[in-house]
Structures are given as C-alpha cells and as structure tokens.
C-alpha cells in the first residue's frame, strides 16, 4: 500500500525554522515506521537524520512523535496506526539538533541527578547477596527502562519546566529505592522530594501511555511519593 509520511524537518546548516516535508512510500502493513524512514533515507532523501540501532525496541534510540504521540519508530507498525497518513516529529521539549535528532543532554543530566546506581558499602559476601524472588519482584517493572526518553518528553510538567527531573529519572530512582540490597534510598528520596522532584508530577499519565516498555511509570512515581510520605519501602 501507499502511505504518506510527513516529517518535521530541520537542517541547522540551511533552515531557519522547522518545516514539514511529505514523502510517498510503498509499504506493507507490517512494516515498522523505522523501515519507512530507512526507505525514505535510502531512496528519496539521504539528508534525513534520525537515530536508530537495534530495530526491535530494546536500545531506546528511535523515540519520536508519531501521529502526535511518543513512540519508538521500530516498535510501531504501519497497521497499528490505522491510517495511511503518518506524521513524524521529533520529541517535544528537547533542543532539535537536526530533523528527528534531539539533544538528550538534559534528559541524562536528570537521570544522573538521582544517583541511578547501586549503593551498598557493606562488605559483600563471598557469593551473591541474597534476595528473595518477592523482593526481586518488588522493583522488576522499573528495571525494564531503556532510557528512550519517550515518557519525560510526553510530560506536560516537563514541557512547562525542563528543570523537572521527569518520569524517566524517577523510574531510575525507583529501581534502586525498592531494591532490598540497596542502601541509599533515603538520599534519593531526599533529592526527589525537593523542588524539581516528584511534586511536579500531577499524575497526568502521558508518560505511562508513552512508555514503549509498558512500564507503569505513574505508579512508580506514586510509590515514590508514598514512600516519602510514610517512610516505608514495602
């Protein structure tokens, strides 16, 4: 079938403003949007820039707005969109470097701000630290995050104020806060209860709807808020 792909383009070396360009592409219903972008780049316009690597939704490179919502281009099939008109735009709220490529630096800065790493200074046992399957299950959902940025850049609170740490950073913190082996929960909760932390979240839920990994992002944020309130990590 024939589909029209409308792309919000911007070449910093030529353009002053972003503008749309449309391309006609022959596509199968089971083609990924990424396949269409590759075809456009390969056969119609080599200047088109976007990021991609794994092509099956595991590396987090290709998050972008597709028909008005954040998704991974490699995990969105043409048939999922129920239309032959596809609009592709870069993520909102980040500086556009070129076409669909955005500057992720703020995003990673926020990630680094929440101590997204395991902390436990007690001398480790000779073998593994023990953890029951239930304790492991407690934070399973948030270990899935691939840092694609789809959540944070779909959040109206982040659009309003880019100092807000954003859902991805909170998800990263959640993964450690609820890990029974970790010892820095209090420090992370302190960071998150500060001005640009969880209280900027108004449970808008765009993040959860956007997450290509199906992570219950808003729930994770809610659990962090509750942990701050009750002091309990159960």
């Amino acid at each position, binding site marked *: 079938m024939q589909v029209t792909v409308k792309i919000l383009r911007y070449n910093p070396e*030529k353009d002053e403003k972003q503008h749309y360009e449309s391309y006609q592409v022959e596509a199968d219903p089971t083609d990924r949007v990424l396949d269409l972008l590759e075809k456009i780049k390969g056969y119609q316009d080599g200047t088109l820039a976007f990021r991609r690597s794994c092509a099956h*939704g595991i590396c987090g490179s290709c998050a972008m707005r597709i028909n008005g919502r954040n998704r991974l281009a490699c995990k969105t099939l043409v048939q999922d969109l129920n239309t032959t008109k596809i609009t592709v735009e870069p993520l909102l709220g980040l500086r556009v470097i070129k076409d669909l490529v955005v500057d992720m630096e703020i995003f990673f800065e926020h990630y680094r701000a929440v101590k997204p790493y395991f902390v436990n200074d007690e001398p480790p046992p*000779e073998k593994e630290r023990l953890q029951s399957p239930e304790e492991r299950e407690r934070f399973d959902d948030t270990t899935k995050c691939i840092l694609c940025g789809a959540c944070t850049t779909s959040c109206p609170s982040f659009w309003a104020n880019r100092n807000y740490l954003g859902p991805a950073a909170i998800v990263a913190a959640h993964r450690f806060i609820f890990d029974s082996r970790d010892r820095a929960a209090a420090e992370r909760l302190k960071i998150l209860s500060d001005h640009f932390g969880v209280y900027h979240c108004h449970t808008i839920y765009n993040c959860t709807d956007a997450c290509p990994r199906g992570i219950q992002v808003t729930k994770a944020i809610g659990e962090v808020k509750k942990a701050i309130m009750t002091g309990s990590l159960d």
Partner: protein
Amino acid sequence: MKTHRYEVVVVGAGGAGLMAALQASRRAATAVLSKLYPIRSHTGAAQGGIGAALGNLEEDSPEWHTYDTVKGSDYLGDQDAIEFMCHEAVETVYELEHMGLPFSRTPDGRIAQRRFGGHTNNITGKPVQRACYAADRTGHMILQTLYQQCIKRNVTFFDEFQVLDLIVVNGAAAGVVAIELATGELHVFHAKAVIFATGGYGRMWEITSNAYAYTGDGIAVALRRGIPAEDLEFFQFHPTGIYKLGILITEGVRGEGGVLINDLGERFMERYAPHVKDLASRDVVSRAMYIEMREGRGIGGQRYLYLDVRPETVNKYAAIDGRTNPDGSPYQVTADDIMAKLPEIIDFCRTYMGVDPVTEPMPVQPTAHYAMGGIPTNIRTEVVIDEQNTVMPGLYAAGETACVSVHGANRLGTNSLVDIIVFGRHAGINAAEFARGASFQPLPSDAADFARQQLDRLLNSKGKERPIEIANEMKHTMFDLVGVFRTEESMQQALEKIRELKERYAYIQLHDHGKIFNTELLTAWELGNLLDLAEVTTVSALARKESRGAHSREDYPERDDEHWLKHTLAWLDEDGVRLGYKPVVITKYEPKERVY
C-alpha cells in the same frame, strides 16, 4: 580539529567497553568513545543469560563449562583461554551481582539459572542449568548496571563519537581519530593504550538479529592499519529468528522446554541430536532446520519452522523426555510461568507478528547472529598481528570484535556475555597497567589525514550508485551464498559479486554534504567496512576446505583436523586478501567427534 590526551582510550561502550572502562579508569586517565549512547549498545539486546558454573540449582563445575565450550567450539577454541574464561566466569558473575545487577532469583534467594544449548552435566550428558539470567533481558541488565557504575565512578564519556581510524606510531598504538556526530568535527585522541570493543558485523547478512550499528568498524579500521582478522569465516547463525525480520528469540525458550516443529508436526531435532535434542549447539540446530526446509518440511513448504512454547506442548515433551525439577517432581509449566520467564519474547511476538506464543507457535528461521572471529588477541587481550602472536604494543581488543579465541568455530549460548565481562575486565586492567609503564608516542602531524581522506572520498564521489542498493545486494549475496551452508561454487560467485559491489562503491552518490549529524555519510563509511569484511569472510571461507562449527561446506562435509585444526589470519592489502594460519592451543581436550 581538536586533540585530546588520555592514557587509555576505550572504543565502544557495550558490555566489554564499559567493563574495561570501569577497570581502566580506576588506574589511569581514561576516556570512552562510542558512536552510540552507551546504553544503546547491542549488549542490551542479549536476552537469555550469562553462563557461569555457580551450581545454584544442581551440581556443576567450571571444568564442565570448559569442556562444553571446547566441544561447542568444534575444538577450534584456544583451550587455555577457554579454561581461564570459564573459571573467571563464576567470580565475575558475583562481581556483577555486587554491582547491583538484578538477577532473577531461586526460591532460596540465590541467582537463578536456566538451561542453554550445549551446556551439559559432563557425567550424565544431560543439559545443566548454567545460564544466570535476569528474566529475558540479561544483556539489558548487564549494560545498564555497568553504565550505572560508570556514572558512579565518574568515567569520562564521549558519546556519539565514531572512531574512523587507529593511529599507529613506531609499530605501537598511539590513539584514534573520531568524528563527533553532532558537529561533524574530527577529533584526535592521543593515548598510550587503545582498547577496541566495537562489537560485531552481522549487518552483512540479510536476515540478522544484529543492530544497525553492527558494521564491524573495529575490525575494518584495524585491517586498514595492517592488523589481520582472525577466523572471520566462522559466523554463527542462530536457529530461532523471527521469520523475515530476524529478531532473535532466545535459546532460553528452548531451555524452558520449547521445541522446534516442522510441517508434519514432528519434533525433528530428535533425529539430529538424540541426546539433547532441541538444546544441541546452534550450528547443529540451524543446519538441521535448513535441511528440514530444503526437504520441503518447512511450514506450508515455506522457509520457516515453528518454535512451540505453548504450555501443553512443553509439558508433553517434558514428560516424554522425563524431565524433572530439582526436587525430582515432573517438570510442568503453566502459561503464567512462560509469561514470567519470557516476557520480552512474548512482547516481540505480539508486536511484530501478532502471534501470542502462549497460544500459538512462533514462525522462526535461522538468523545471522554472532561473529566468532575478529581482531586476534592473546589471552591477555593484547592484539597480536601475525602467526607468531607478536603483540602490537598498546593495542587491546575485547568482546565480540575480538577473537581470543574462546568461541572457536561455534559459540555456545551465554558465552558471549561471559566473554565480554571477563575479557573486557582484563583489557581494562592490562591496558591501564601498560599505560602507566609507557610513555606517549609522538603524534604525527597528519594524524587525522587518513580518516579525512576516507570521508572526503565519499563526499566527493561523483557516481550515481545508491549505498542502500549496494548494501542490499551485499546482504542478499552473503545470506544466500555464504550463509549456513556453503560450497566452492556459491562462495566463488559471492566473491565476484562482492568485488563488483566494491567497485560500484567507489561511485556512490551522497545527498548530504553537511557536517551536523550526517548519518548518510557515516552509514556509507560503514558500508565500506562491511564490504571489506565480506570479502575477507568469503576468501577465508573459500580457503577452508572442511566443515567445522558454523562453517559447513557441502562439498567438504567432514571436519578435517589433520589439515585444518588451525586459525585463519587474513590481511587486507592493496591487491586483496592474504591468508595465514596459526595453531590452535590444545591443553587438556584432544579433538574428537562432536555428537549431541
């Protein structure tokens, strides 16, 4: 052009690169360069598990792991290196756990383990639970954990810097040249030691589980600097890729009891590997599948088969095999168990095929997966440049891009993650120690020239050829003619095609002449790498007149230890590929026939 100076430069930020960086940065000033954001590396795609004989669920030992790996390699693996890796594996998995890696757990709180192809109890010959896993996203968790530790330790990263050239001065590594994607500027990184950890080159084949970024940059850059490539003819085809897309369905599916089924509804692996059946090593299973499909037993006569992990099927065959749980009760699974252990796989199948593995079988076909060969190194991860194992000072390689060789002619599942962690770690330590005892080589004034020339040639090329068409033809050729089965004739044909494509490559046309994020230019440069490697692969494969591991020739169906128990080294010169050979290190295990 900017110049930077670090004692150690790590190229690549996948599992091997990050592990090296963690170790090196504790000892010396270290920079990590990666063409992708580190967490976008392909290590994140690894699903099934990392092999280590922890023996958490049943008896196991590093010796058995060693033997299985030697056997899996079809005796081409260097046994000293394999033994080293399998013993280190245990400690390194604990080290990962101490870094916070969220492994799945056994009921008593220890690291959970599952079965994987080729891993056996050496006494009974039955599959053993050796693959430590975190659901089916083990690689993802390894990559995330290592990256997190790098953040904790403040490692210096240059994200989205693509390395184009290696600087060699006085026969020693002196740094690299890289392009910064965001600006298009060339940077020279002056270093005492360079570690290559750039991953594989599976994008050479049409159906592949590999990422777009898997274009063999490290090996190609080294080849252009006179460093040989080892054993490129051995490229693993994984039995179970999603039909047409190549996306991988982990061997863990079969570890949990899934079986391969042909059009007649037979579990055909019974015929090819009577002992371990569906859990034979990958080369064996992929070949069996090809034979089934060639003999018309593909599903509906098509080029795919079914991988069936529906609970009723699993339970049926588990009962036939007499499979039991550790406590002796019969092995039984429910739909929920499958969902809990293989969530990602289920998600892939639903997303890309609209198939729900819990109620329907999955259409699969073999998919290009893993490079056993690569930049030759010794057991200390130092790059060696000739048949006598002469070391190039200051140059190290680890991970899929390197060939130690621990995988020989065929890698066992879960052994690559072991490889990247164990040898990545040692590369970091050894490189940093070397750097502390060495001084900087003087930097040539024209350090970036060769890289710039390569780019300029592409930018100024005046032809009409489309890179994507050349790429597609190459992939097609390699998959059909230098794939699971090979013959003299097919490979000769492939070689001619590749040479034709290389000529056409000189006449490609680029649209993008800008500097900022010119991905068209870099993709074209990567295509050049793939073409070089395709040529080397084909020439190496043509020369090897035997079948061993992943290299199976229909015209020479037998393994020939008398003539071919040796590693290929291939140099890429002005006038083509030159081959040499070096012996395999054999310590304890004499080659014998491989049956599963």
